[in-house]
Each structure stands twice: as structure tokens, then as C-alpha cells.
């Protein structure tokens, strides 16, 4: 019963279009910074601000009480991770409902567009694949421009340690002209199961799927919500468990591995579908 309720709550959150998934201390201010440190914020914004893009899409709901279905236009923020137009964003926020059962609707993302900088129209794109377990999804621009996109290079990352200062980069909504914003926090814990995850202080307010940097401006991870594996959905873990929707930071190296796997699969479209793959 607990699981079902939690799953429905998750669905409700997705359906309601929670566009700002903040830390457990949502709204908590990052605190007053010494004047000497204010330049760090500007540095990150100058360097990576344009890599944060808006991803607009329409989520089409079918089944699970939706019948023919409903649709909802939504917008989230993603991070460009490739000069040729690959954007990483939250799976959950782009219609990926993990471990759903029969009572959950099918959610199909359509009309995906990536808005870079002050672009109002957006570039047509496709959500190519997702890793629900890691709360990651990858969007690819259909026809990337000739000029390489400003991006966050996940291959040039560093790990984080307990107590380390972290800077999260985010964007406001369109009403505020998608202004880039920074919040600051620290690593207040490191979890090793179900995987290595940095647990940020509540002052770090960011959206799912967005990058977190260290004081040197090097990416250390991506904000995700830990979704339990299908096998442990009844075990009170992650999103559906006692820790609820607490945002965590997936180390950038893990995000890179997941990206390589995702793009590798995308590069092999002729591969037989899993259902058709003959048993070994």
C-alpha cells in the first residue's frame, strides 16, 4: 500500500508538472558569501551558463485512467554535454516514470525542443533514450548547428569529498527570462549503496538533471533523484522510501559512463530489439 501510494504521488508530481525540483530545504538561501567569493558564481555562469538549456516537450499520457489520454506541455532545464547537441536531463522530468505498474499511464514525450540561450522557438530534438534507474535522459538536437555548442565536458570531472563546497547551476523559468542562477552548498554525506552518491546540504538548490561544480568550476556530478531498482521497489528505497525525493548528486564519472552507454546504443539502431534478441 505504501508503495502504491508513493507511486501515485510520483505520478501526481509528474502529471502536475513540478518544474522546480528543489532540495529538501526548498527555498533555503545559500547564505551570504564573502565578497571575495562572489566571483566564483560569475565564473561558473560565464563558463557554463549557455550550456544550460531549456528542454520543452509535450508529455502524452495514455492508459492508467487517461483513456485516449491527455497531454501536458512541460519545460525542464538540461545540460548540453556534447558540442554536437546532446543534452542530458532528468528522466523523471521528461516523462520517465520508473517501475510503474498497471495502474500507471504510459507517458510519451513528443514535440521535444531545445532552447539555447535566448532562443524563443527552440530547435527540434528527440529524446533518444533514458536510464530510469539513474534518473537520466538524453535529448539530441535533430539538426545541430555548425558551431559547436557550449557544453559541460563530463570527461573532465573530479570527484567530491565530504565537506567540499559545491556550486549548482540552474535557470529560472521563462517568466524570468531563464536567468542563470547559482546556489552553493557542501557535501554533507556520501552514500555507497545503492551506488556512490554525494548528498548535498539543503542549501544547494537545483533542478534534477543539472550539473554541480566544485569551487574550481570543474563538474563533479549531476543532480538526480535515486529511484529504486525494480527488485527493491517494495523495500522502501530511494524515491518511494523514507528518503523520498531527496536530491542526490551522481558522480560525473558515473554520468559519463551512462552517457557513453546511451549514445552507444543510439549509434546502433540496427541492433535487434531486446524482445527479439535470441537467447544466448
Amino acid at each position, binding site marked *: 500500500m505504501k508503495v502504491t501510494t508513493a507511486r501515485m504521488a510520483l505520478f501526481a508530481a509528474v502529471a502536475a508538472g513540478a518544474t522546480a525540483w528543489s532540495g529538501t530545504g526548498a527555498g533555503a538561501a545559500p547564505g551570504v558569501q564573502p565578497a571575495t567569493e562572489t566571483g566564483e558564481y560569475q565564473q561558473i555562469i560565464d563558463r557554463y551558463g549557455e550550456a544550460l538549456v531549456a528542454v520543452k516537450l509535450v508529455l502524452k499520457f*495514455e492508459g492508467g485512467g487517461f483513456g485516449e489520454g*491527455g497531454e501536458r506541455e512541460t519545460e525542464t532545464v538540461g545540460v548540453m554535454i556534447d558540442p554536437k547537441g546532446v543534452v542530458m536531463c532528468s528522466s523523471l522530468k521528461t516523462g520517465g516514470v520508473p517501475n510503474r505498474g498497471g495502474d500507471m499511464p504510459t507517458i510519451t514525450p513528443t514535440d521535444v525542443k531545445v532552447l539555447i540561450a535566448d532562443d524563443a522557438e527552440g530547435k527540434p530534438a528527440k529524446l533518444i533514450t*533514458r536510464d530510469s534507474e539513474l534518473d537520466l535522459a538524453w535529448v539530441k538536437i535533430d539538426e545541430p548547428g555548425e558551431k559547436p555548442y557550449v557544453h559541460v565536458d563530463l570527461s573532465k570531472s573530479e570527484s567530491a569529498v565530504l565537506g567540499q563546497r559545491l556550486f549548482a547551476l540552474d535557470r529560472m523559468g521563462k517568466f524570468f527570462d531563464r536567468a542563470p542562477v547559482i546556489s552553493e552548498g557542501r557535501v554533507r554525506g556520501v552514500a555507497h549503496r545503492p551506488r556512490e552518491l554525494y548528498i548535498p546540504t539543503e542549501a544547494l538548490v537545483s533542478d534534477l538533471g543539472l550539473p554541480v561544480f566544485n569551487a574550481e568550476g570543474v563538474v563533479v556530478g549531476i543532480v538526480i533523484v535515486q529511484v529504486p*531498482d525494480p*527488485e527493491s521497489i517494495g*523495500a522502501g528505497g530511494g524515491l518511494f522510501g523514507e528518503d523520498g525525493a531527496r536530491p542526490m548528486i551522481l558522480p560525473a564519472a558515473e554520468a559519463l559512463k551512462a552517457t557513453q552507454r*546511451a549514445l552507444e*546504443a543510439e549509434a546502433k539502431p540496427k541492433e535487434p530489439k*531486446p*524482445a527479439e534478441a535470441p537467447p544466448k
Partner: protein
Amino acid sequence: VAIAVVAALTAVMLGACASQPEGAVGTTGDTSREARVPGDVRRQIALARDRVFPALVHIDVVTVDNFGGRKVKQRASGSGTIIDAEGHVLTNAHVIDKATTIWCTLSDKRRIPGTLVGDDPFTDLAVVKIDAAALAKLGPEAVATFGNSDKLHVGDYVIAMGSPFSLSRTVTLGVVSNMERVFTRGLGDGEVDEITLDAGGEQRTGLFTNWIQHDALINPGNSGGPLVNLGGEVIGVNTRGGASMGFATPSNLVRQVADSLIKQGGVARSWAGVTFRHIQDTGIEEGVLIDSVDTEGPGAKAGLRPGDVVLSLDGTPTTVRFVDQIPPLLKRIADYPVGTTVEVTYRRNGATATCELVTERLPKERGDEAALRAWGLTVKEITERVAKALKLTDTRGVLVGSVRPGSAATAAEPSIEAGDIIRSIDGEKTPALKELVAFYERTLAMENPPPPENVLIEFDREGKNYLTLVKSKPDKPPDRPREVAKAWIGIETQPLVPRMVEKMGPPMEPGFRVTRVYTGTTAQAAGLEVGDVIVSLNGEKLRPRGIQDSGLFARLVRNLAIDSTVELTVLRKGERVPLEVTLERYRLTNEDAQRDRNTDFELTVRELTFFDREDNRWAEEVAGVMVEDVERAGWAGLGGVAPGDLIQRIDGIAVRSLEDYRRVMSEISAKKPKRVVFVVLRRTRTYFRFVEPEWGALVEKSGAGAAAGEKDGEKKGGERDGEGSAGATPNKGDNR
């Protein structure tokens, strides 16, 4: 004199009334059967039953309504009576309202199709035609005869017949409580309550009816069934009810309407363009007070004004002292042939005067509708009544009835909302529904050049005039993105936690106990068995701490490479057994399978997965597509296709994949066959499912046809397809 009936009751249609406990009729404490109903009456009831039962019809309908920005099919049922040897079946208009399919179950249990001959919402009556040859098999007794409702008296026994709750035929007994019932608003204030056929309140009904109120038990599904006297004659049609009271339309009115429906497909009525109020408590001694005058109606043209007291029509006095005398007056006017010049004698400011009023056709009240699926809109014709309700100055434009959430209409900036009045599209004026639907169809049919990406819609909202761009959207979304492929091992496990290990004793160790081995997998080939406890993976000991580590083993596997080989150590019967297993690519889950929703058949299927085969014990060569969802009143659902079925063949063509299915269904949509045969596998046996789509009802443009050509009261059997009709009954998807 009729007393006021509480407002709550007046709004209750048969379909909405609650079932009543079985109760005695006219008991005084002695509940024996003899005391309740004397023997001679019981014999008369039996005779009446035998006279009418053969003519009793159970009616099932599939309706198509327009709301939520799209068409919605539903099922409903009611009752009817065969009234002639040609196969005409009398029922309520609300029973067949918006029906695209009508089925009539006869007294010999045969279920045959019916076609609508015509309906008259103003009296809530309709006539359906069934095949006369089919009727002939029932014999001449299968035609009921009408009685004279004017000869019915308060206190007379009456019998209600029908098929409530979709049950087989029933008979209930009651007495006539009132012969002149008019529904009034509030308690005793004397205002006639306006009752409507549809939930939207657009179509008035019962205008010309003094209802027969009785207490024969009626329930949802009795609607359209006959009220019968002890002589076995139909003296009314049960139409409304609630709170132990039934209200039947008198047979004399019914006969007149039914005759017109059969001969003309509708009822042409005259309209004077004024509303009346009875004169009780007004100080007026004679005549009837004109309460209001339609500004451009016949009354206004004749010079009548509010406050005038009409004394006579063509020399016949019109005194209406009480509220229940209003329906006969309205009927008297309505019965004039349209265009008749009527001499109206009236009194104004103490002076008597005469004018000539030329009647006009009673205008339709509920407008036609259409669904514009690609834009996510349902749109409605603006009738005079709708214009008045919306405080519009005229009937030009098209009313947005509803908008599908997330559709092109809602994605537009500014979005289009229900209640907006569409004035033009891409610069083309849309003064009426037909122009709008014509534009829509023309745009969707464009191939070279292709349809424009956006259409510019001009609409009014709350006195402001807006422009917006609406982008047509494809009916079917693209396939969903799949999950990233990861390594998988064909087993299920449970963590063997330390306390469990302690209880089991040595040599048991913590690890993951195999709870299932999937057939045909590398895990099975490697020799893994249920009961094995995996204690190490690639030399690393597995130490689950508790239930929170349920997914640890599978997660460790997912982090490895597809096609790599892992070394497992398993405990089996106290022995440590080394095993090597090649990891497979993950198997497509039911959740991740691609889906296809067919809007014609209202059927959602998905790819057949490995896990479907496992769960159903189907061999690997079993192929098809899994039915995931079927709309209750959709054609597939009506044909017996159900969730969990595996569709293997359609019209003789093998369906082995989702691509096959899409191709076959696309061909079927193009051919539009009368019947489509699905062969489905359900568990261990196959079933043939015969689905009979009604293609006409699925064509978007049918709404336009109705909008363009149909006039009120001129519907003919077979013309009406439900797409272009409007309104809603409050008891959708249920007994009526």
C-alpha cells in the same frame, strides 16, 4: 390543481433515479398479496402483461459524445415498445440521444439492429425502426396498441413495463397520482421549471407535456418503456422519475408525435416568440400574461409586448389560471402549421386590441457539434438559445465546447478555451459550424502542398478579440524512447539476510537465493536452479544487509557489460558450485514495450515481451501483439476483445509484430470493412472475435454533414450518426 413539486425531483430523469425498495401499493398494514392486489386486478394485470410483453423491446445504444476536446463513446440502455407491424419502436429521445449504434432485443431474445427514424427532444420521444421481417416472426401480438390517455383518471391502476438496469422485462404496478403534472420551480411559487434533455441545459424538453404522475416502481432503464392500463393498452411512455414517483408522457401526445416522426422524420411546430405566465395571484381575471417577448420573434413582429394579456387566439379564449394549463396553450400554438396567421386578441393598459401574428418554426435549441481532433477541440453551433445563454448579440461564429488538455489548442499561446467564440481561421470567416468544419477538413486533406504547420485562429473571449496560432498535431505520438540496454541475467533473486542465514545454520552464507530461472536463458543453460544461493560474483562476496538490498544482485549485473561472462559461486545442497554465465542484453519489459493506440477501434496494444511469454507459458514461437487497453464502448471492446488477449491474426493475416499490426490496421482503416475478425490467444486457447465497426461514426467530417444539412425535426433514419449532434444526457454510460 397541481401542487408544486420539489425542484430536486424535477431534475431527476429515469436514468438518474435511485432504485427503490420493494413496496406495497396501497397497503393498509395487511401485506398479504390478496390484500395488496385483489384477484381480479391480478388477472387483469396478467392479461395486460400478455398483451404488451411481446411488443416490449430492450434497447442498447452506443453513443458518441463530444467532450474533453474529443469524441467519447459510451454505452447506455433503455426500453421501448413496438407500435406497428412495420417495425417502429417507440422510446425516449434521451435513450437514443447521440446513438451511433442501436440494438433492440425483442421478446424472443433476438437482438437486432435498429435505425433512428426521428426524435423529438421537445417531448423526449423517438422512433426507431427494426426489420419488419424480423418482427413478423413474433406474430401480430408483438404490436402494442395505444389507449386514450384522456380517459385515464387519478386513482386508476397502471402498469410500468420495461427492462430496468438492463434486466429482462419487468412489470410494476401503481396508481395514477396526477394527470396534469407540471414541474415547477421551488415550493408553490408557480413558475414552470425548465427541464432540459441534456446536462448542458441547451435543449428544453417537456414543453407541451402534462405528465401522468404514477407510483409504479420505475428504475434506470425503464426510460422509453410503456405505461399500460389494465386493458393492456399503452397510455403513456415512462420518461422521468424519482423518489417513488414516475412521470409518463400521455399516449395522446405520444401518438401525435410518433405519427409525425414516422411520416416526416421530425415534428414541425409553430412558435410565437413569447413566454407566458399564468394569472393566478396576479389580479388579472382572464387571459394569460405575456412574460417576455423575443426581440426578433413572431410576437415582437406582431407588436406584442411584455405585460400584454392575451385573451384569445383566433377567437378561442386563452385563459391560463394555473401553471399546469401552460403546456396545453403552448401545444395549441405549436400545433398551428408553421406560417399560420393567428389573430391575437390582447389587453394592454386596460384596452383590448387585436393583432395578426404569423407563426414561425420553433427553432432548434441545441446546436450541432463536431470534434476537431487534430486541434484538440470540440466545437458547437451557436443557436439562438445558446446565444442568449452566453449573452451573445447574435449567432455568428462557432462556440468552443471543450478542449483536450495538452492538445494543440491548449499549447497555443494564448490557448483556446471552452467558451471562446471562433470568428475566423487563416483570415477566412467562420460564421457557422459548417464553414469551420469545412476549413478543418480541407486543411487536413491537403497533400500537395502539405497542410500549413500552423493556423491563425481569431476568437472572442469575454468581449476581447484575440489571435492565436494553433499547430495541428499528429494523432499518434512517436514511439517512446526505450531504456538504455543493460546486462541482464535470467533469474530472479531474494536477499538471504544474516538473520535468515543464522536460522538456516552452516554451511549457509549470506547471498542471493535464486527464486526463478527463466526458460531459454543463458542462466538456465549455465545450470542455475531455483534454491541456489549466489554467494559471490566475479570473486566478490555478496553481503545483502536486509530487504533494502533486494535489487543489489541485479544492479551489480546491470553495471557489467552485455555479453560478458561472470563467475558465480553458488551454494547448492551444502556444496559450493562454481558457474559461469554469459550476461544477456536486458529483455524488453512490459512497461518499456512500444504501444499503439488505434482510435478507430479504441484499442491499445503493445509488443509481446519475453515476460508475457513467461507469464502465460507461451512457447517462443508464439507471436502477436498484446492487448493492453480496450475502451468499454469501443468497437473492439464491443466485439469482445479484452486486455490480456494476444492478437495473432486479423482478417486472416498473421500478426507477428507491432509493425505487422500497424500495417494491417492501416489497411483496414482504408478499406473500412463491415466486419473485422480478430483471432486472439487468451491463456491457452484461441478465440474468434467479430468486430463490426461503424465507420461512419468514426469519420470526423460527419459532424459537418449534420451541421450543414440537418434542420431541426428533419432527421431521417440512417442519416444521424451522432457526430454532429450535440448535448449530453446526465446518465451517460448507464441505464436511461
